[in-house]
């Protein structure tokens, strides 16, 4: 399965798709990126006249790249081009260090900790374009083929 096929199987679309591309992927982990657009819907409200990317959105971006893209790759033998995986976020613990502003490109690096019985748990980091650590934490979810 190639990187484009993985992104095509993601169950998200605008305005809630936070994956632009996958840089590297293996059984052990994934690196991917996303650039926050100037007009993302949440900037109007977070915050008033002071657009900053919400932590929940950074977490979502980390989960979409770090867990869902990796999970699709790990399930590649069970998936085909027409079956979408069923997914659910089940836990996350996240620390944040720096803000992300509109038009910033972020890179997500995820390392697989456990993938058994359809539960995937990863250590995930998010870096800004200067390579500075923006957020890091653990994210876990369930991935099923139905």
């Amino acid at each position, binding site marked *: 399965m190639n990187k484009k096929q993985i992104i095509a199987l993601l169950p998200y679309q605008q305005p809630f798709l936070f994956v632009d591309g996958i840089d590297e992927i293996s059984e052990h982990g994934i690196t991917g990126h996303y650039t926050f657009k100037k007009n993302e819907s949440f900037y109007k409200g977070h915050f008033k006249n002071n657009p900053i990317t919400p932590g929940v959105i950074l977490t979502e971006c980390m989960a979409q790249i770090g867990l869902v893209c990796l999970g699709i790759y790990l399930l590649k033998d069970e998936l085909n081009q027409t079956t979408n995986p069923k997914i*659910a976020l*089940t*836990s996350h613990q996240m620390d944040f260090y720096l803000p992300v502003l509109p038009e910033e490109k972020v890179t997500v690096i995820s390392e697989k900790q*456990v993938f*058994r*019985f*359809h*539960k995937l748990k990863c250590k995930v980091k998010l870096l800004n374009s200067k390579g500075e650590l923006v957020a890091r934490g653990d994210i*876990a*979810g*369930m991935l099923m083929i139905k």
Partner: protein
Amino acid sequence: MENNELISKLKAIIKPYIQDEDAFKNLSEDTDFVKDLKINSANLVDIILDIEDEFDIRLENEDMEKMLDVKSAMAIVNTKLAG
């Protein structure tokens, strides 16, 4: 392993993941992990992994599917320990 010892080991494993405290206090062999203790699917996997570590056994998908309540968990652990 004695049933009492096995149940108390399982109780210690299950405790961090339960949502229903009353059902946990009244835990018996018939207690259902999902219906009674309200454990979610991801934590059910955590319990399976913790059982593997505690008893030094390896569980498979079919074991996971059967492990719905305390009774079936005890039976599976005993079978694996005997094997």
